[in-house]
């Protein structure tokens, strides 16, 4: 039997206490080869092509660290070669070609081949395979390989196909490895071709990545990257303020302003491809154009951004942010409460006899979302609109939106990291999209022909015209483009990404 002496017990106890109280890293501590990121969301699944996580924009930075996309994307949303180096259609758009990057290896050392690309697209295209955007990938078929060039027949022309290759679920997975280990085996030991390899993972706690020494894009700046999953904003603030993490993002703007001037820390804020808007669902009082227009003209977006968001945000008049392909700065919706009052009066409404409806909003999902809606309701009240605020959960919003049962007005956000108008105005306003709120034939008639438009200039101009029409009809109330705050140690250099994906390999280096 092993006997523990009093001295041994005391020594063990003392050691334990000393370990608990061992000095921690402080904000001024030098960053070694490990970069700690206090990340705002958890990573539920490693499969970037299937399941709910695959279409979650907030975890794309992690996916982009482990996997490569068919086509890459620069921080300004422009596209660059990824695992496909050259791509395009033939003249009549009946075929596509993709040149596959050579001399690339998977994390297990096996070579990456055109077969991996074809298998990935076919897997994503299966309607019952669990890919939420399978219809995009199902647009091409009958693949052929000639050297490193893949060609395929276009079953249904989609002008945005190649943009999607740099977007949600546009990742290449290893065919042989995946087929060998299966879906659950892949979840436990994922491999990609990306700049980092999975080293250790504990769900809801952290993901530790090791640099891929054979990465085709060059070895990243840090040997190890740790994503700490810290969904609570207060805890993220504490992580960066205490020096426990080197970088964090999506902290409250008040805390950002306080910490960015603190010695040893720096901060950057960038408008990203995420906008806040109020969906308008047709029916009832919303069928009155005067009411809709009054709703839009009564909202002082500049003041909301200045007062509630400390100036961090960009007011918008359409669903296109300035970085998007179909942004048209000439489309404006003025803040004009007098006009709003006049429009309402024309429909028989006034401050004494207000038009009444419900507006739904999230609370705490986006920065100051509830407070913004409170402010807007106050502005509306001044012109003769009496809106009742109802708070809903994210899941309820999606279900109501899909079943076209949202309240007459409903606040939510909308991301579009490839900046194409189909992914903003298109899917938000086309009545056949399960996520649109306003359904009307006049708008569908304008949007419909644009889906398959082969002339790119004409296509983009078409979407600008649609945006102008929507603004004139007030079919939706675009509010603002969100800005992403990032705090980091002064020894680092952080390049913000308009898509919002803060992938460490290409965007975080030593200063």
């Amino acid at each position, binding site marked *: 039997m092993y006997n523990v002496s009093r001295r041994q017990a005391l020594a063990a106890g003392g050691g334990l206490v000393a370990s608990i109280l061992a000095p921690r890293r402080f904000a001024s501590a030098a960053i070694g080869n490990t970069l700690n990121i206090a990340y705002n969301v958890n990573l539920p699944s490693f499969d970037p092509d299937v399941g709910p996580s695959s279409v979650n924009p907030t975890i794309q930075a992690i996916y982009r660290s482990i996997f490569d996309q068919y086509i890459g994307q620069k921080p300004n949303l422009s596209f660059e070669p990824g695992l496909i180096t050259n791509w395009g259609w033939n003249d009549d758009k009946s075929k596509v070609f993709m040149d596959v990057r050579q001399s690339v290896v998977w994390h297990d050392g096996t070579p990456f081949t055109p077969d991996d690309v074809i298998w990935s697209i076919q897997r994503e295209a299966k309607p019952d395979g*669990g890919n939420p955007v399978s219809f995009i990938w199902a647009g091409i078929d009958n693949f052929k390989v000639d050297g490193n060039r893949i060609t395929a027949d276009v079953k249904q022309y989609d002008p945005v196909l190649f943009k999607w290759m740099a977007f949600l679920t546009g990742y290449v997975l290893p065919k042989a490895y995946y087929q060998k280990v299966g879906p659950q085996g892949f979840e436990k030991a994922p491999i990609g071709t990306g700049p980092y390899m999975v080293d250790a993972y504990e769900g809801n706690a952290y993901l530790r990545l090791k640099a891929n020494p054979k990465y085709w894009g060059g070895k990243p700046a840090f040997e190890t990257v740790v994503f700490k999953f810290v969904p609570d904003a207060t805890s993220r603030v504490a992580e960066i303020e205490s020096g426990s993490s080197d970088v964090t993002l999506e902290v409250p703007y008040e805390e950002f302003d306080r910490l960015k001037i603190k010695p040893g820390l720096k901060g950057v804020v960038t408008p990203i491809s995420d906008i806040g808007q109020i969906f308008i669902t047709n029916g009832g009082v919303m069928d009155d154009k005067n009411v809709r227009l009054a709703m839009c003209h009564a909202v002082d977006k500049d003041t909301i951004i200045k007062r509630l968001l400390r100036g961090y945000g960009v007011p918008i008049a359409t669903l296109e942010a300035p970085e998007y392909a179909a942004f048209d700065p000439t489309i404006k919706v003025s803040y004009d409460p007098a006009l709003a009052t006049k429009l309402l009066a024309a429909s028989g409404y006034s401050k004494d006899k207000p038009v009444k409806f419900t507006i739904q909003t999230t609370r705490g999902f986006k920065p100051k979302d509830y407070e913004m809606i409170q402010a807007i309701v106050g502005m509306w009240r001044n012109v003769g609109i009496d809106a009742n605020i109802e708070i809903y959960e994210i899941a309820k919003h999606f279900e109501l939106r899909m079943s076209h049962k949202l309240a007459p007005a409903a606040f939510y956000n909308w991301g579009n990291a490839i900046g194409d108008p189909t992914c903003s105005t298109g899917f938000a306003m086309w009545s056949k999209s399960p996520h649109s709120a306003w359904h009307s034939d006049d708008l569908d008639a304008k949007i419909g022909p644009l889906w398959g438009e082969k002339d790119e200039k004409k296509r983009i101009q078409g979407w600008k015209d649609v945006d102008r029409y929507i603004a004139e009809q007030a079919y939706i109330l675009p509010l603002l483009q969100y800005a992403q705050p990032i705090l980091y140690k002064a020894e680092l250099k952080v390049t913000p990404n308009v898509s919002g994906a803060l992938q460490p390999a290409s965007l975080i280096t030593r200063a």
Partner: protein
Amino acid sequence: MLFAVLVNRMVLALLTLAGVAVIVFVLLRVVPGDPVAMMISPGASEADIAALKAHYGLDTPILTQFWIWIKGVISGDFGTSITLRLHVTEILAARLPATIELAILALLSAIVLGGGGAIAGTLMRRTVGEAVIDGVNSILLAVPDFIWALALVLVFAVAIPMLPITGRIDPALAEGFSTRFYLVESIITGRFTVAGDILSHMTMPALALALPLGAVIVRLLKQSLKEAMVQDYVLLARIKGFRELRLVLQEALRNAVGPTLALTGVQFTFLIGGTVIVERIFAYPGIGNLAIDAVINRDFPLIQGLVLLFGLIFILINVSVDLMVAALNPRLRHP
């Protein structure tokens, strides 16, 4: 007789769990929030939506879905998580040890803090010391665990950075474990540096959970001790010349601990419930943190598994407490 009580409680527990299973299954499908609605692309057609529903087994009538699920549960298969894409049983088995270690550490802390406070308050009765203990205890009782969590972060992580804020272990040390009971395993295997790191990660969440429970223990135990201290046997011991500390610990405490134990058991279930928000704040990878993500994402199979697991834990705690109280008090063994 104790065996009969045990069998009786187990049968009741099974019935309760069956009821919980039915309620959670029906509720999830009645309240708004469709997991497919959350993941479909804006461009998805009706056929795409139908295909996704079929993929996750949500296209059949609710009774069929329930039958498939309950058959699986009986055979130990709780289904596959929609978001984590792993078997629910596997996920729960991986996360439960973290919560068990945290809850037990919090319980032990609460017992030490609460017991110590009650004994100190009894020893200092009718002095300023007792008033101070009562005052502090009232504050501890009034402030919920998540507020303590935030306060502890501000004090011990930001103002005096001496404890890590998030996680269960330093990622650099999280290697070489053969079980998920990291703390227990590291102590047993003599890896005290690792154990220290784990304890440092657990200190703040455990304290946040322990402080309100500790306050309940102080109040209950102090009251019981107060009543015990005027009993004849304590008076006799006092006449014999026993010191005050010995009177409290040796004479009064043994008789006063019964009611406190019973109520601590009930309060422990609340502590387990409190892990949900506390684990979230400290990014602690237990079943509480997991539950929040599961609910946000409407991950039906995972929510169902978690609710059943929480139900089972609550039942086991209550049965254990009943048995302990019965074992300590012979009168309760013969109903």
